[in-house]
């Protein structure tokens, strides 16, 4: 239900006064309404849930998370050696 898959935006267009994106995941293309998001560009990764894009995924934050976890583990190893 709340399974939202990260898909890459390949096209943005308007239809009946509403904004849509075509987004792709492993070759499968799907259409998603962009009503809930303001700044979406072609090439962004979006989370799609029941036909609506709900968030833009941040590649930078993904990288930062990996770094933060490394730091966390480092800190935990130190705590452990106390």
């Amino acid at each position, binding site marked *: *239900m*709340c399974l939202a898959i990260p898909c890459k935006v390949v096209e943005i267009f308007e239809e009946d006064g509403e904004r849509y994106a075509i987004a792709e995941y492993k070759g499968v293309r799907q259409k998603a309404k962009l009503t809930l998001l303001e700044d979406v560009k072609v090439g962004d990764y979006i*989370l799609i*849930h029941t036909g*609506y894009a709900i968030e833009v995924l*941040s590649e930078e934050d993904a990288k930062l*998370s990996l770094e933060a976890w490394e730091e966390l583990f480092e800190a935990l190893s130190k705590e452990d050696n106390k």
Partner: protein
Amino acid sequence: MIDINSRRIIKKSIEIIRKLSTKLDRVKIMHLCGSHEHVICRYGIRDVLPENITVIPGPGCPVCVTTQREIDTAIYLAEEGYTVATLGDMYRVPGSKKSLMELQSEGADIRIVYGIGDAVRIGEKEGKDVVFIAIGFETTAPTTAAEVVSVRSKGIDNFYILNCHRQMPPAVEFLLEEGSNIQGFICPGHVATITGLKPYYELCKRYRVPMVVAGFEPVDVLVSIVMILRQIVNREYKVENEYRRAVKEGGNIIAQRLIDKVFEPVDVPWRGFPVIKNGGLKLREEYREFDIYYHEDIPEMKEIVNNNCICGEILRGEKLPTDCKLFGRYCNPLNPVGSCMVSEEGTCNIFYKYRKLI
């Protein structure tokens, strides 16, 4: 997109979970999303956890927590001649007498749709009165809100919703208020993309329990367990955001405004729970013309449930599917007795799918 499942981080987190666990007695962590249960079963995460660290599924499945009465109401409406549009999982949930699928085989007009937008289009194209079964937590509520606003602006007058939306944090509060022995929560990442972290700050402070908002890759679940165990070892309680790549501190403001414009909180029962204060959302008065309960006089119906089904206890985190005498033989995905066996997000369905691994 970079692959977040770094082998190094996964190995390290399993190592650290083991180390932290030696400093702890028994720890019970609850997650609140069927998609987390999927990841945990599919990747065998429970197998790598030390014996004293347990992760249990909670009420994180919108189809599962929908009450029998709501399903019976959908069936009643289809029998009355409405076109009932629903997400796939609801289609097979047994009502008191039958499921929507069985009713369809008798000729009722039931449509499976991917989202509410498809349901509106059926009404527009075919001119029939369409009722959409609006289920879901905060992730789905803004899509209903957006569509209701759009239907209003287009002047469509043959579209209604059977509103079954629920809000997750009040259910967590209910469990904590009941004095549960859960020492940490893995909070649902996609609900938090909408709500942000705020609802969890309040709960965390009041009940002094660690809460980590987590993503849906195996590494996300493992790292969130590390974060929770670390807090317990350090005698801390705070909200941490493990899923930064998708969850912003303040959530999705456009979605929050839409929910607030169209809905207001309401006390509702959940399957397995009594009435939960603010556990649901109802359409505001300005939008009640889209509420099927307002439009149609729906009679009181008596719920008939199988007393051997333990969906309720499973949703409250008190039991597992393997504790149920119906599980696997009498109740399975082809012949489900309770909602938890029907939904792809239901604990029984997931346990059945991966039963050889459990």
